[in-house]
């Protein structure tokens, strides 16, 4: 029971982190980062190879680079940095001059290709088999299988998610957040007012990448294994479904979506008695995710918690500047 609850909490925390990052990129800035899961995977792989011993350990049954055996906070910090560093090269290719829907498909293609490359390069990160036996943080000091450890781990995840939530709130309520939303609503007009849209997008791409990297590190530290099958591109779509369902453009919506879609779905299907041939239920789940996106975009495109209408009044001239949700 402890294991079940703590697992649930860790997954919820990781999904909340991921959805906050998607909310910042997609909800606030209008970037459709279909390669989001690649950033999470990069963080997870980084945390894994930084915390693991060299690959000759354990009889050398898996091959990977590095294996630095670093103590706890470094793998997570490294994962966050790698997530952030991955953003500029991708952003420079994708965000610079392409139309928004082009950006989306370019990143989708990128996600598929990244998965292909990792799968077909076993000497880099153990290919399709993936990395396993990743040590849990501080497992040399505490017993990682004790109830206490599990609770502390899940509590730490929730605290981190809360911290990121506060940071995300600060970003979207700042004047900077206002620029981001202005760009999302009308990129041309925002550029005309002197907002550098590439720099704005890039900053959110980097911030989102860092959060994604951290979420990957948290997840891999808990489940201790990571393989290409866990980060196929449809996983990104689940997170988008979460943000669309919860409500775009506000962080409460992102949190709610994370709790409803990835977490809620997993839990709901756990209690469905198995029926039909094997694989029918996962297939059905995917159909539901797709249906959920279509249904929400049709009937309630602004999500369960719609973005608050913001009205800004200047002190002198009472000229309201209104924003519409969606966009």
């Amino acid at each position, binding site marked *: 029971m402890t294991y079940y609850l703590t697992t649930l909490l860790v997954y919820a925390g990781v999904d909340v982190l991921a959805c906050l990052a998607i909310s910042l990129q997609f909800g606030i800035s*209008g970037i*459709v980062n*279909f390669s989001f899961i690649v950033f999470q995977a990069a963080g997870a792989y980084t945390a894994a190879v930084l915390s693991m011993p060299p690959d000759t350990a354990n009889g050398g049954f898996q091959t990977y680079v590095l294996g630095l055996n670093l103590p706890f906070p470094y793998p997570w910090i490294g994962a966050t940095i790698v997530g952030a560093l991955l953003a500029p090269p991708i952003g420079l*290719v*994708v965000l*610079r*001059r*392409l*139309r*928004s*829907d*082009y950006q*989306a*498909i*370019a990143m*989708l*293609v*990128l996600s*598929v*290709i990244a998965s*292909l*490359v990792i799968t*077909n390069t076993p000497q880099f990160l153990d290919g399709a088999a993936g990395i396993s036996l990743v040590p849990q943080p501080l497992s040399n000091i505490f017993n990682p299988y004790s109830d206490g450890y599990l609770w502390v781990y899940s509590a730490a995840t929730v605290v981190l998610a809360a911290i990121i939530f506060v940071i995300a709130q600060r970003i979207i309520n700042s004047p900077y957040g206002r620029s981001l939303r202005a760009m999302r609503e009308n*990129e*041309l007009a925002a550029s005309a007012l002197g907002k550098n849209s590439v720099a704005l997008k890039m900053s959110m791409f980097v911030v989102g990448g860092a959060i994604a990297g951290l979420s990957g590190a948290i997840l891999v530290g808990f489940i201790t294994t990571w393989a290409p099958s866990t980060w196929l*591109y*449809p996983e990104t*779509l689940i997170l*988008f*479904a979460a943000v*669309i369902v919860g409500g775009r453009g506000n962080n409460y919506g992102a949190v709610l979506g994370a709790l409803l879609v990835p977490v809620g779905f997993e839990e709901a299907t756990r209690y469905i008695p198995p029926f*039909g*041939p094997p*694989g*029918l239920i996962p*297939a*059905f789940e*995917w*159909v539901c*995710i*797709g*249906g959920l*996106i*279509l249904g929400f*975009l*049709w009937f309630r*495109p602004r999500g369960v918690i719609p973005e608050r209408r913001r009205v800004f009044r200047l002190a002198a001239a009472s000229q309201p500047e209104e924003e519409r949700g969606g*966009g």
Partner: protein
Amino acid sequence: MSLIVAAFGFGLVTMSIIAIAAVGFTMQFGITNMINLAYGQVMIASAYAAYAVNNAGVSIWLSMVVGAVFGALFSFLLNRTIYAPFQRKGTNLIGMVIISLAVSLVIANVLLPIVGYYSVSYHLDTGPTLHAGSIALTGVQIAIMAVAVVAMVLIYALLHFTRLGKAMRATAANPTLARNCGIPTARVIDFAWLITGALCGVAGVVAGMNSDAFSVANGSEFLIPIIAASVLGGAGHPYGAMIGAVIIGEMTEVSAALITPEYKQVAAFAALVLVMVLRPQGLLAKRGTLAAAG
């Protein structure tokens, strides 16, 4: 050296398949302004439709016609029931991309329980193998290339010598102006989905014919070279897609011979990235693809 020449021969077949698919994909985008990411799944669904009749004893050529009709109707209905209503509602470009990806997920996972998880292959006679130097191609592969050439010629004839084709080009260039000139754009778009859907269906069947076996999982794999070829040539531009198909088809096969087969899609992607950096509007530019999101 002979290995590379042989790979060049396979590249001719691969480019034929990509060309059929990419021309359909890019025309959908050009005429209806819709990046249909469910295209790969419609291809695989059509391939299975053809398999159903082929398995019942119908010849592969007749099955291809069934696949084409299936693809045409499927695409037509997809647009009528999902894409067009969303577009009428004023969903923006990004929204439409997300919708098409959701549709792709639904199609793949509805298809999966119906057709099963195992790979299937068509019943066909591959015919005698023809040799030209180091190039060795089976009769079926030659036939695939012939199908592609016929399809390309028909598309060219359609766009240049028929009223429908001219109406399509007008709609692609400026839908509002086309409507004001009395072109029934709604009907033109319906026809565009039927025609591109047929290309999609044929592409699915020939892709299935060229591979030893195919399964539902191939749907999203098909999509990558198609996107690469379309974007490479300039999205929305049918002749650009043909050029893109030639480059991507040869690059994948020759790089497979030169480096390793596992990376053949990666090589195609590298070409795509290069074009995106150097010439984001594609080789044959279509005005408007670089415009800010509407």
